């Protein structure tokens, strides 16, 4: 069990958990969180790609990719949360 | 030994007739009725020909025998009597005068079979008279006004005929110096004798103007009796002429001409008279008259030109057999039809009746057409003066018969004859079906029955359809016209296109219903499917399933070594370069 393998398998597992959540969850917030999990898992996998057998230095490219991915995901989450809030407000108005 | 055989053949019906007078035996006798002609049939079918025997000791010396012609007559006559017997057994089951009918029936049968086997003039005459007079009882059987009138007419003519026959036979026997029929045929008979004999047998044949008795009698007699009267007994007249006249030896031009002219008149006059009748059986009777006219044409030609007789004889025999079967089937079928009570059965029987009717009318390749064609060929041997007329007459006779048959079929439907109340409807079907089958298959079975005699028939062309078709079309037209006249043209048109209209309406309704159902389904099904899809979270499930599926497929493809030949090799485009620019027009960037 090399560290990169452990890391990679963990990444796939996290992605899988997120995927199951995204597909099965009914609540809006929970689905957003599940999608976040997916993104984290995918990030793990990319980082693993950067791993090189010491003494080689890790590949810098995936780090750049992961950072980009995180930024993208943050904005996506923000949009999703904003939508959810807006929808909740509208629904609350209806109930009132 | 041979004599015994003949005695048995003729004795059985006679014995049965006698036995009927014994009440205890009646059941048995009626049950044996269909078997009465069996010995005669067996004799005709099995015995080697020619057969000859005599009983000099009996009366003035009786001679019995069978030759090729007589044999064939015995066969179809016997079959007809058998079938009629089978039919009569059921027809007469509850009839109060069944015994009397049975006796007369069996007596007439004896006479009929006997005259065919007789080889001398006396016994021939005796059997002929037995048959004729016994038939009086058959005609009179119903005892109602119609039957009494018919019987009176019948017996008058029979008497007339018997007288003429007797006189003729007597003359002939004198001139020939012998009673033997064979001698009579060879003898140079006088014109008078021949004329008298023609008169006598002509009555039986119903050639005009001697036909008056025939249709009423056939109409009045009970169905089984009509069948034998028309199918078997009038053939006795033909047989008599063939057996007694010196055909093929001496020419009697005047007689021949008269006979031929009478035949021609008969063919068409019978049509004109027949279509006016409103009783189905009488129409059948006229049809018989018309058919006998055809036979008279043959006989007349032979009288005119003796050389033609060798050709004509087999054809006449065939036509006789043909008519016997077809007409017998028609009469028995009439009875069978009348006995049916349910509409489907009636329709079925009526449809089955069409078969012998068409055979009689001369549908191509049927026995009727073959016979007529053969007769045309045979008549070619005769007078060239008459030939064109005869040919035309024969062709047109098909039309005449068709029209009569159309009238018959119409009448049987519109005014069916009465059947006894207690008849078993099915029981009457078998005799009818048997005879109809014989009528239909006669062209096939004829070589078996007739042997060498069948040659002109098998060689005959199958005949033309047009007489039958034209007449059928004409009859249909007349029927439609009459129908339209009766119910009025407007109603008629409405009736005519009613089925089309209702079919159209039904199709329209069906289409409308279909469309409505489809619309309902179209509304309901997608909604239900959509709900199901949402309930099962189809899209989400499919996402997972597809990931797994595509992965599996790809992995599987990886495992298999890709088949290089299957995929066309392509050269991939240049996708990236060390230099920045590809293509001449781009500015360099650095």
């Amino acid at each position, binding site marked *: 069990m090399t560290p990169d393998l452990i890391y990679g398998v963990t990444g796939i597992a996290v992605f899988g958990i997120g995927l199951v959540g995204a597909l099965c969850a009914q609540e809006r917030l929970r689905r957003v969180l599940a999608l976040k999990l997916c993104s984290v898992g995918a990030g793990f996998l990319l980082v693993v790609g950067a791993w090189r057998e010491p003494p080689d230095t890790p590949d810098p490219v995936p780090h750049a990719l992961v950072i980009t991915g995180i930024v993208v995901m943050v904005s996506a989450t923000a949009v999703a949360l904003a939508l959810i809030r807006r929808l909740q407000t509208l629904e609350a108005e209806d109930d009132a | 030994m041979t004599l015994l055989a003949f005695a048995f053949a003729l004795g059985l019906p006679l014995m049965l007739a006698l036995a009927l007078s014994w009440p205890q035996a009646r059941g048995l006798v009626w049950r044996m009725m269909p078997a009465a002609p069996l010995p005669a049939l067996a004799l005709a079918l099995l015995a080697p020909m020619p057969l000859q025997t005599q009983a000099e000791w009996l009366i003035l010396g009786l001679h019995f025998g069978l030759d090729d012609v007589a044999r064939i007559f015995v066969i179809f006559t016997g079959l007809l009597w058998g079938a009629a017997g089978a039919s009569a057994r059921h027809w007469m089951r509850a009839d109060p005068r069944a015994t009397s009918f049975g006796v007369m029936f069996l007596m007439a049968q004896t006479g009929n079979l006997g005259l065919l086997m007789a080889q001398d003039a006396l016994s021939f005459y005796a059997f002929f008279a037995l048959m004729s007079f016994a038939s009086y009882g058959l005609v009179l059987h119903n005892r109602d006004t119609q039957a009494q009138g018919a019987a009176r007419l019948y017996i008058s003519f029979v008497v007339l005929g018997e007288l003429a026959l007797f006189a003729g036979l007597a003359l002939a026997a004198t001139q020939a110096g012998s009673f033997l029929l064979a001698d009579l045929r060879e003898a140079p008979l006088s014109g008078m004798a021949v004329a008298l004999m023609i008169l006598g047998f002509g009555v039986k044949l119903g050639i005009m103007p001697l036909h008056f008795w025939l249709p009423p009698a056939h109409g009045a007699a009970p169905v089984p009796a009509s069948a034998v009267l028309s199918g078997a007994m009038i053939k006795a007249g033909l047989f008599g002429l063939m057996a007694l006249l010196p055909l093929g030896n001496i020419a009697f031009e005047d007689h021949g001409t008269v006979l031929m002219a009478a035949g021609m008149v008969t063919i068409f006059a019978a049509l004109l008279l027949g279509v006016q009748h409103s009783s189905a059986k009488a129409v059948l009777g006229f049809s018989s008259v018309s058919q006998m006219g055809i036979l008279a044409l043959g006989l007349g030609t032979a009288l005119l030109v003796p050389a033609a007789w060798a050709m004509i004889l087999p054809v006449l025999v065939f036509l006789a057999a043909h008519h016997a079967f077809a007409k017998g089937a028609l009469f028995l079928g009439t009875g069978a039809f009348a006995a049916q009570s349910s509409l489907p059965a009636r329709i079925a029987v009526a449809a089955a009746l069409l078969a012998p009717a068409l055979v009689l009318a001369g549908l191509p390749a049927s026995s009727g057409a073959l016979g007529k064609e053969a007769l045309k060929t045979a008549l070619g041997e005769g007078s060239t003066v008459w030939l064109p007329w005869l040919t035309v007459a024969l062709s047109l006779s098909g039309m005449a018969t068709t029209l009569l048959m159309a009238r018959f079929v119409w009448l049987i439907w519109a005014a069916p004859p009465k059947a006894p109340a207690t008849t078993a409807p099915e029981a009457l079907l078998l005799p009818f079906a048997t005879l109809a089958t014989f009528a239909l298959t006669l062209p096939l079975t004829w070589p078996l029955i007739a042997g060498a005699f069948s040659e002109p028939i098998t060689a005959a062309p199958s005949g033309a359809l047009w007489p039958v078709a034209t007449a059928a079309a004409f009859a249909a037209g007349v029927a439609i016209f009459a129908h339209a006249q009766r119910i009025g043209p407007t109603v008629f048109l409405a009736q005519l296109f009613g089925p089309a209209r209702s079919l159209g309406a039904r199709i329209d309704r069906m289409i*409308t219903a279909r469309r409505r159902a489809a619309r309902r389904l179209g509304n309901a099904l997608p909604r239900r499917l959509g709900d199901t899809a949402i309930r099962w979270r189809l899209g989400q499930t499919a996402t997972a399933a597809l990931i797994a599926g595509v992965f599996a497929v790809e992995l599987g493809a990886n495992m298999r070594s890709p088949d290089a030949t299957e995929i066309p090799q392509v050269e991939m485009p240049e996708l990236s370069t060390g230099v920045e620019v590809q293509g001449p027009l781009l500015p360099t960037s650095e």
Partner: protein
Amino acid sequence: MMDAPLLPLFILMTSLLAAPILFALPERSARLRTGINLSMAALKVALVGWLSLKVSQGVIYDLRFEMLPGLEFKLQADPLAILFIALSAVLWLITTVYSVGYLEHGPHRARFFGFFSLCVAATVGIAMSGNLFTFLLFYELLTLATYPLVIHRGDVFFFIDWGIYVIYTLAGGLVLLLGTLGLWVLAGTTDFVPGGVLADVVAETPLAAKLLFVVLIGALGVKAALFPFHAWLPIAMVAPAPVSALLHAVAVVKAGAFGIMRVVYEVFGIETAQALGVTVPLAVLAGITIIYGSLRAITQDDIKKRLAYSTVSQVSYITLGVALASPIAAIGALAHLIHQGLMKITMFMAAGNLAEGLGVKRVSQMDGVGRAMPGTMLAFSLAALGMIGLPPLAGFVSKWYLAQGGLEAGQDWVIALLLGSSLLNAIYFLPMLHRAWFCDAAAQRDGAPGRPRIGWMLAAPPITTAVLVLVAGGFANAPFSPLEWTRFIVAIEYQE
């Protein structure tokens, strides 16, 4: 200008370009619209006359434009095309006059005349298509253009049957697409060539060729109202009278029949089709249609519906003549293309006049209409007698040739068929004439005010076409008569 190679395109454009202009015209500028309509129609007749003169002199017109690699949009003007264009051009002119009168105060006239023009453009395009692909383009255009015309009135009744009409016509188009594709894949070309392009295919894979024939004829049979596919035609009779007239006489059913001609003669080739053994079944199918249509016609009380079923029957004469595979029958078929058009358009316009002038829409109301509208009914009677096939009217000529052709082809049953059909024609037309001329009107129409008032624009067209019926039959052997022209065509198709 004397030898314009683009002449076919001009002819197409006279109606194709008129359409958008007519659409755009405001509803109230009726006079301008009529002016454009009539001048375009007249221009087309003139151009067609010129074109036919040129073609008869042997000039070949062939316009091509590549749409897909190897697949061309192709217009050609062969004699067969001329026959059909001439019919549509002349009848378009007449029908335009009639429609202007018919719709004088009706709604949506802009829409109507726009689609009317499109419809004729499509018909002309169909006539001049040089390959099946082009044919398909115009065939679909025709379907689309007739669609708003037929429901122009937008009756409630019609919408019940709406589905059938749409399904039949568009499904026919789709199947034709399938057939065209099949031809393209099998033969590598869709061109119309006298003698056919499929001889090799038939030799190699007769089954595929047979299938292709069935698909193509099935598709075209929908428009030609061949027996199992005829149901849409009687439904379409709710269209306004000029539309029905055009639909039955020129545009739709004729397009189907014309397509069958092209397919049999120039896709398969008559000899190849015969070798394939598909012509006799087609002839039998046509025969069934003839009888079936007549039988259904008898029971219809609605005049237009009766005429519609009569069309079902009569158009199949054309198919029959094509399928008999004999040159003489082919002459009959082609002549009938024209003659039936003339006769049927007369009858529909007359029926329209009856409905407009007297409110008579049913056969049972026709008592005495002859006295009320003698001109119209005279025209109607002439056309009806022509349909029955009385000499010297046009219908007789085509029937005569068909019968001769049937004998020549050894298909004797055709005689019986034609006799039976004539009888049936008589059964359903003669009562109409009887009612019109020999029955008294009084009781039937409630409060009909004296003489009906219909303008000359309604009255003249049927009389004109009736005269043409008489002329086409009476002068059948004169030069430039339809019959003469068909002889010219048949000589080409049979490559004599």
